[in-house]
Each structure stands twice: as C-alpha cells, then as structure tokens.
C-alpha cells in the first residue's frame, strides 16, 4: 500500500500519520457543568464570585444562628439569655400549644384536632384530579364541613361545653379565617363576576361599584369598618360576635378579588359556547351552570389558588381588631417576660415565617402543577 503511495506521489495523498489533537475540554461532569453554568465568560465569572460570596454571607450566619449556636432546651429565658447569638428554639417548644390552639381550653383541644382531620379529609381528595365523587366532595367542602366544624368548635350542646370565640387563636384560627374566606369568596366572587358581565346596566353598576371599592382600599380599612361601623349599622341590641365581623370583612374583600379572577375566565370562554348553549334552548342559569362555569373555572384555577394564597397571607391582618391568629399570638408571646430576650423576636418570627411559607409554597406548587396539567400541548 505505502509502496504504491511512494510510487505514484499523488500530492493529495497524505505521506505521514497526523499527530492526535488534544482532548476537548470537559463538557460533562462537575467541571464541565461549572464551566458552562458558572464560568462561561469573564463577566459570568465575576458574577459567580459575587454570588458565592453573597450566598456564603447569608448561609453561614443563618446556619450558625439556627442550628449551631441555637438553644434547644430550657424552661425560661435563662437558657436563651446566656446565648443570644443563636435562636431560642426552647421558646417555640414551650409555647407550641398556644401557637397552634390559641387559648382554647386544654381538655377541649381534641375538638380542634378533629377539625384539622376533617379539613384534611375534605381538601386532599378535592386536590387530587383523579379522585372520585367530586360532587359529593364539593357538597362536603362548602356545606357539611363548615356546619359540622362550626358546631364542633363552638359547642354548647350534647355535653360539649361552649367555647367562646374570644379564646380561639393561633394557627387554628388562621385556618378558620382563611377557610371561611375561601369558601365564601368563591360563590360570591362568581355572582359578582356574572353581575359585572350582565346585560342589565343596573346590576352591572352595582357589581362594578362593590368590586372596585373593595379592591381600591386596604384590607385594614375594611376590617376597621367591619369592627367599628357594623355595630352602628345594626339596630340596637343586635350584637355580632367579633370573629364573625372579621369573617364578613375578609370574605367581602376576598370576593372582590375572586370576582376579577373569575371574570377573566368568563371572558376566555369562546363566544361560540354561549351561542351554542342558547341555540340549544338553555336559559341563562342552565347555560351558566352547565356550559360556561365549568370551562371558565377550569381555566382560572391557578388564579383562584393565587387569590387563596393572598387571602391566607392577609389573615395576619385581623390582629388589627384584636383577634389573635398565628402571627399575633406569636407577637404577643414575644412580650412575655418569662421568655423575653434579644433573640426571642427573631426566633418567633422565623417560626411564623416557616409556617406561613409551608402553606403558601404548597399552594403555589399546586397551582403550578394544575397549570402544567391544563397546558399540555401548548408549550414549545
């Protein structure tokens, strides 16, 4: 073979073996990943170094505060006062009952636990798309559960001692306020949204006024109104429970936001669906209930969950009319002289933040999951 080459001396035929090229830089593994994602260019490298510095500046003190320097056991402030560089988890441990149940009497706390159980039993199957009996589930969520748990928590019959709403508090009250707000804002929001899209100018004007006023003012003023003006509005002798007043304020406020979300869904239903339903001879309520709402609500489930998240966070404002939900219960116990140290506020607020974060993050992940589930086929 080489003989033939030498003989023919063709200029385009190679005469010797080429030196092997150096191997390519690593494009896989840890180094390759870091090169692609952290040190791609000069600017990237600078950004990465700044980023690493920031991350370390946050993570190291946080871990030291929350874990390494933290006080885990103790009966009063002595343990934490000696060690103010770290969190005072003993404070949380000592008060956890109060943070969950408020001042609900000790022997009756099983009723609150039963309420938690009933709540989970209603919500979990509703959140799983493939779970059966959705209609029964809706009936349970909107009617059976609120009535049963209301009777259970207030008591005053069949040997259950009555528990005044004054002593309700903590995480339990946060869940009560947000649940009532959610369960009422959905139907009222639907009605307001339908009213806003109505052909009757009178109905439309009333709904627009309610929605825009409630959305234009802060929740605090609505709560103040419910607390100081409602007693003035009612005939003498009629007195409302303070919690009930807060619930009315929160629900009214949430309904206005819900109405706007649902209106978006109603607008997204193609006009042909309305025309088709009318052509089939359905009247307005049949059309709305059977054709329009199922499609509209399905589209805006993420928006509804986002409104729920906002509502859940807003429940922290009911402290304004001295109702003690989770955040205000914790804030109150910060002033407790038994535990007051310079590190207690940080610990208490970190605990509150963690609880709120778990609920809200869970809901937002669920909303994103729904979005992905409904979006199949639309993404590139």
């Amino acid at each position, binding site marked *: 073979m080489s003989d033939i080459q030498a003989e023919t001396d063709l200029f385009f035929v190679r005469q010797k073996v080429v030196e092997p090229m150096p191997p390519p830089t690593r494009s896989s593994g840890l180094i390759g990943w870091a090169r692609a994602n952290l040190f791609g260019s000069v600017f990237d490298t600078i950004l990465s170094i700044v980023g690493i510095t920031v991350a370390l500046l946050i993570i190291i003190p946080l871990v030291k505060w929350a874990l390494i320097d933290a006080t885990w056991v103790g009966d009063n402030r002595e343990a934490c006062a000696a060690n103010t560089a770290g969190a005072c988890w003993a404070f949380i441990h000592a008060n956890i009952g109060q943070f969950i149940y408020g001042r609900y009497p000790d022997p009756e706390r099983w009723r609150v636990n039963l309420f938690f159980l009933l709540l989970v039993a209603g919500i979990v199957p509703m959140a799983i798309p493939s779970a059966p009996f959705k209609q029964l589930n809706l009936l349970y969520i909107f009617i059976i559960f609120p009535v049963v748990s209301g009777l259970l928590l207030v008591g005053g019959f069949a040997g259950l001692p009555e528990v005044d709403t004054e002593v309700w508090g903590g995480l339990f009250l946060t869940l009560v306020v947000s649940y009532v707000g959610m369960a009422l804002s959905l139907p009222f929001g639907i009605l307001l949204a339908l009213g806003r899209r109505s052909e009757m100018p009178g109905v439309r004007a009333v709904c627009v006024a309610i929605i825009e006023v409630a959305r234009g003012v*802060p929740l605090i003023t609505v709560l*103040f109104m419910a607390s100081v003006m409602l007693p003035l509005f009612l005939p003498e002798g009629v007195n409302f429970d303070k919690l009930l007043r807060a619930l009315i304020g929160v629900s009214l406020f949430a309904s206005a936001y819900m109405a706007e979300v649902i209106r978006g869904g109603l607008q997204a239903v193609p006009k042909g669906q309305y025309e088709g339903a009318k052509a089939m001879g359905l009247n307005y309520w049949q059309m709305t209930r059977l054709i329009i709402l199922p499609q509209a609500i399905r589209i805006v489930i993420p928006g509804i969950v986002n409104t729920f998240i906002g509502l859940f966070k807003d429940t922290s404002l009911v402290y304004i009319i001295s109702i003690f939900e989770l955040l205000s219960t914790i804030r109150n116990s910060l002033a407790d002289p038994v535990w007051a140290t310079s590190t207690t506020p940080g610990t208490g607020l970190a605990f509150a933040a963690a609880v709120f974060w778990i609920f*809200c993050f869970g809901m937002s992940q669920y909303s994103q999951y729904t979005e992905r589930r409904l979006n199949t086929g639309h993404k590139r």
Partner: protein
Amino acid sequence: MSVADAGRTSSPGVNWLYKPAVRQFVIQAALVVAILGLIAWLVHNTAVNLADRHIASGFGFLNQRSSFDIVTFLPLTAEDSYGRAILAGLVDTIIVSVLAIIIATIVGVLVGIARLSSNWLIRALSTVYVETLRNIPPLLVILFWYLAVIAALPSPRDAITLGSAISLSNRGFYMPKPIFGAPFVWTVGAFAISLVVAYFVKRWASARQMRTGTPFHSFWAGLAIVVALTLIAFVATGAPLSFEVPVKTRFNVNGGLTLSPEFTSLLLALALYTASFIAEIVRAGILAVSHGQTEAARALGLRHGTTLRLVILPQALRVIVPPLTSEYLNIIKNSSLAVAVGYADLVAVGQSVLNPTGQAIEVVAIWMTFYLGLSILTSVGMNIFNRRIALTER
C-alpha cells in the same frame, strides 16, 4: 317587514312576563329598590345609634385641636387640628409609597433579569429570594425588620458608623441633612431648562437619523448638557448647599436627617416584598417575547445590548405594565400596615383621631376616599404610560 322583525314585535301567544325587556326591568327595579331599602335601613339605624351615643355626625371635628404628639414628615404640633393631622398622615403614606415603589421597581427588575441569567448561581439565588419573600405575609416582613433586625442593632452610644456623619443604631439611621440656600432655585431652574434642551436634542437626532440614517449619541450628549448646565448654575450662584451633620450626644443623636426605625422597616419591607412580585412579572414579560424576535434582531446585525433595548424590552413592557400597575396599587394599600409598627400613616393617624372623637363613619369615609383617590391617580398615570408603549396597529 322581515321575518326577524316579525318575531320581535308580535308575539301573541307569549305572556308579557316572559319578554326579556320586561324581565330585565323588573329584576333591576327590584335590585335598586332592595339596595335603596337596605341603605335607608342602615342610615336609620346609624342615626338612632349615633343619637344614643351623643355623637354629632359631620366633618366639624376636623377643625378641633388634636393635641397629638406624633412624628410625621409634615411638622405637626399639639396645637394643630385633626384635619391637619390627617393631612400629615396622608403625606406620610405618599412618601413611603413613592419611595417603596422606586426601590421595588429597581430591585424587582434586577432580580427578574437575574432569574433568566445563564449563570446557575445567580439564577438560584434570585429564585430563593423570590420564593421566600412571595410566600410570607408582608406584615411578617415588616415585623421582622422592626423587631428582629433594627431592634437588635446596637444602641446609639456604640452605633455602627461610617465616618462621623452616618450612623446606624436601634434609634434609626442618621445622616447629614442637606440645607439649601435661597439661590439654589437657580440650580433647579437650570436643571429643568437643561432637560428641555436635552429633549430637543434627542428629537433633532431622531429626525436626522430617520432622514439620513446617521446615528447620533443623543443619550451621552443629553447627559453632558444636563450635568454641565446644572453644575455651571450651581457654581455660578456660589454653591448654595451645606450639610447639617448629626451630633452624637451621650445617649442619643441630634440634628441631621433621621430615618426612624418605623419608617425604615416599613419601607424596606414594602420594597423587598413587592420586588419579589415585580421580579416574576418582569421575568414573565421577557419570556413572553417570542424567541424569533431575538433571532431576527441578531440576523439584522444588532448587538446584544441593542437587541435588548430596542427589540425585547419595548415588547416585554406591553406585557409588564398592566400587572406592574396593580403591584404599585398593592404597595399603596400595604403601606397601611404601618399601623402595626406605629408609623404615622393615614390609617394610624385616622385611628388616633377615631379614638377620642368616636367619628367612625367620617374617618372610614376619609380613608376610603383618599385610598381610592390615590389608587385612581396611580392607575390613570400608569394607563397613560401604557397607552404610549402599547402596540400601535394600523
């Protein structure tokens, strides 16, 4: 007469009750009567209740002496009336909202762009920031700054200082206060005039580029004009600006410009909390611009920065501005959380007016009017901006 007309006018077999027009009229009339009745009933109850409690309705109480001892941006003494106190509260609300809007927009845009960075670490850090702040109540963020951060700072005696003029302690943030002399008006005037000049330079440059295609560095030229004119006026009038430096006494700091712990914690909390929402809006807006736009711009030979500025951002803004407006409105409404830390905003002042006077209805009406007014002003402003950047179709 066409078939359709016939169907509409004559319907002999149908009861008049089933005519849509009649039914709509009946429903609306019933609704109006019900609402008017409800209002009349409420007004009657309120009148009876107010008479029982010997509370005079009306806004006459606004002229009474307040004897408040609260710190606001507008100077307020105990001799001032309730009306002036409420005005001071409104000014406080506006100041904290405007500053929070500015900071939140800057931080939000930066974090939103960082969430799309090709750098993994930057992406991760901004995601952690957004997901943490978005999922906790704003009230908790305010309390965190107020109770856990600022209250934990050292006392004024061993404050954290930067030079002798700037200090940070649990009494607040102290810095030199600028004192403007009377001739400073000329500097302001020169600044305004230079802005107008820069605007006309920009117009001329655009027109020329349209005509001849020759570009002109109008931004740098404009900046030079503004800086030069303002500086010349400032120096020519004898630099009428001095600083009052805060003086540290044994237990406190006097003079200078102070940001109180209440104001600082409210401002930081509002700005950082809302920034996490704005970041998501910015990210969604940039992602909403189709990738083909970037590719086309690159194919035309535009550079990376120019692509972003002239092609991506103008289109992203159309998606960004409407939800951004509602975040601004949220800042204004959330500023009412000031009452939790004792910053004297509209709600806090209103509450302290409500307690001694008992004028619940009037105070709530004032709150609602001012908040609705602020909201409407903001939306109108943002809508004008929105119309400017909206897609102009043929």
